[in-house]
């Protein structure tokens, strides 16, 4: 009595039936197992039924329907391209992907260059209304000195930081009085 088959074993039978494998083990199974042979025949039979059914269905479609289809197709066929512009158009059609890829890449590079270029100061556009404030960057050559710190309604702290590498830094820390706990 043959061993009960599994879907996986039957998959091998199917591969064999479809000519996808010539595994000797499958051939041996087919030799000794009538069920396996019946399964292969069943696969072939389903194929013949499906193929035959679809071909008969196609045969049943009237010739007039296909004649009408050809007329519609013929109406839509493009005229053969002969002129220069047509050749250019066909060339573009053929290489559309490459052309578009190149154009998009070039556009992306240009956009990136615009974004990353060094920004120039636009003087006089920081004021409210019509007031023009001339703002210019100033390079300080000397350490600023703070003579006095007036912070009404709060507290102020001046912190001077000296660093060998970064130089001198002054931090002014102002805290409103109502947020300071304990005062």
């Amino acid at each position, binding site marked *: 009595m043959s061993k009960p088959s599994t879907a996986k074993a039957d998959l091998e039978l199917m591969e064999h039936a479809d000519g996808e494998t010539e595994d000797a083990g499958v051939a041996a199974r087919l030799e000794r197992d009538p069920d396996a042979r019946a399964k292969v025949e069943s696969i072939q039979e*389903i194929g*013949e*039924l499906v193929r*035959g059914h679809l071909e008969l269905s196609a045969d049943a479609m009237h010739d007039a329907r296909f004649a009408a289809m050809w007329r519609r*197709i013929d109406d839509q066929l493009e005229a053969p391209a002969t002129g220069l512009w047509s050749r250019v158009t066909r060339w573009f059609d053929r290489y559309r992907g490459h052309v578009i890829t190149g154009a998009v890449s070039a556009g992306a590079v240009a956009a990136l260059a615009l974004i990353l270029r060094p920004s120039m100061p636009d003087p006089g556009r920081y004021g409210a209304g019509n007031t023009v404030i001339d703002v210019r960057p100033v390079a300080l050559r000397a350490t600023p000195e703070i003579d006095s710190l007036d912070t009404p309604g709060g507290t102020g702290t001046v912190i001077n930081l000296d660093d060998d590498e970064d130089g001198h830094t002054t931090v002014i820390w102002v805290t409103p009085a109502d947020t300071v706990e304990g005062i």
Partner: protein
Amino acid sequence: MNKAGQRASIPTHGGDPVDDRELVLAAQRGDRDAFKTLFERYHRRAYALALGVVRHPDDAMDVVQDAFIKAHRYLDKFEGNSSFYTWLYRIVMNLAIDHLRKHRRANPVELDETRLDSDGDEPLLPRILGGNPGRALVDKQIRGRIDQALDELSENHRAVLVMRELEGLSYEDMAQAMSCSKGTIMSRLFHARRNMQKRLIDLIDHPSPELVADLLGGQAGDPEDTPANDEAPRERVPAARSRR
């Protein structure tokens, strides 16, 4: 020969058989008659393929029409590395699958199609109609049941089954056509065939007297010699339609 089986060597241009390649070259130069000849050669075969996938005759006609228009539009890209029909059926198949995606309805549940579980999946059934399937196709009941069974398959299972049975595509070719792995194709095909078996099984187990007579070629049906009988001889009469 059936109409859908008109495959090659159709006399054209004064009675000389013209090769597909010559027709394609002529069509690429703008010869509409050459393209019409290609249409006449392959429209029914393309229709059978589209019908198998989309299932509705009018939809299948639309798919075939669009396929020939597209084929003509891109004819200059056809370099002749494969046969014209191989190129055409890929267009038909792509359009048919696109059509299914656009008009997707509630689909039958699709079982795991990426792998087969050796314990969970049912094996194939070792039963066949026997006799001559070509003759069995004369039976309206069988044709109706095949139609129904195809309708009930999931779209992917049906597409794979049709490609395999109608065009004889290899697993690898089907995997390329459907953009999936070869293992997925094998699993889909296995499930499709087993589902077809399950849907046709009562015809096998309880064939009508007319079917038995058809299968036996009109001979008087001996109850001991029915196709359902497991002891019946397995020899198969060659099918009415030979495989291409």
